[in-house]
């Protein structure tokens, strides 16, 4: 473990579309970039046993999760020629239709960003201790499991 404290990836509540738009705008000064790619995870209103998911409440082992996000970031920079990368994940309640994960990669060339984005999202799903409680419209719940 290094002394460097990893960046905090978590944001309370849903990730607003304005925030995503502003993140894109901030890259206009970085003119070596030729391609961006963005993944937005959105809460789905799944119907399970006749009940509809109205929201997911996210919790996390935050210290470990931020270390894992940092390792995924380092590994992606090693594997792919990226100019920059940003990851944000929600904590707390995110309603169906709202955004809970925002991953943003940029590179001089397009082919890299397609591969890098898929790699990063799959690593996040598999490696990061985040837990989603699917809350149904009748206030019952179940714990989500990633496939």
């Amino acid at each position, binding site marked *: 473990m290094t002394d460097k404290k990893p960046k905090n990836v978590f944001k309370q509540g849903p990730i607003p579309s304005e925030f995503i738009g502003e993140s894109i705008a901030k890259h206009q000064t970085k003119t070596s970039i030729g391609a961006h790619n963005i993944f937005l*995870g959105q809460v789905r209103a799944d119907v399970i046993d006749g009940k509809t998911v109205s929201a997911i409440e*996210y*919790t*996390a*082992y935050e*210290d*470990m*999760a931020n*270390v894992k996000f940092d390792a995924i970031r380092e590994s992606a920079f090693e594997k792919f020629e990226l100019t920059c990368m940003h990851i944000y*994940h929600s904590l707390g309640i995110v309603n169906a239709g709202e955004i*809970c*994960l925002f991953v943003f990669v940029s590179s001089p060339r397009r082919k890299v960003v397609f591969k890098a984005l898929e790699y990063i*999202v799959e690593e*996040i*799903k*598999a*490696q*990061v*201790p*985040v*837990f*989603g*409680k699917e809350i149904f419209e009748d206030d019952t719940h179940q*714990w*989500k*499991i*990633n496939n």
Partner: protein
Amino acid sequence: MIITIKYFGLIAEVTSQEEETIDFSGNTIADIINFLNSKYPDLKNKDFQVAQNQELISEKTKITGQEIALLPPFSGG
């Protein structure tokens, strides 16, 4: 040895708390799991991984750290 145990998600529901501190004299993670299984019988049929000092470890691992976490299946994103 004083150990803090953290519980998350479904596991925190089973233990009815997110964290507790215990004075523990066992050697391995398996010893801790046995102890917790008797304290919380409903843990036995639950799926979880164990982290020690924020690294996932196996049941054979020796207890070295002050912080153990019981992590149910991940579901981020």
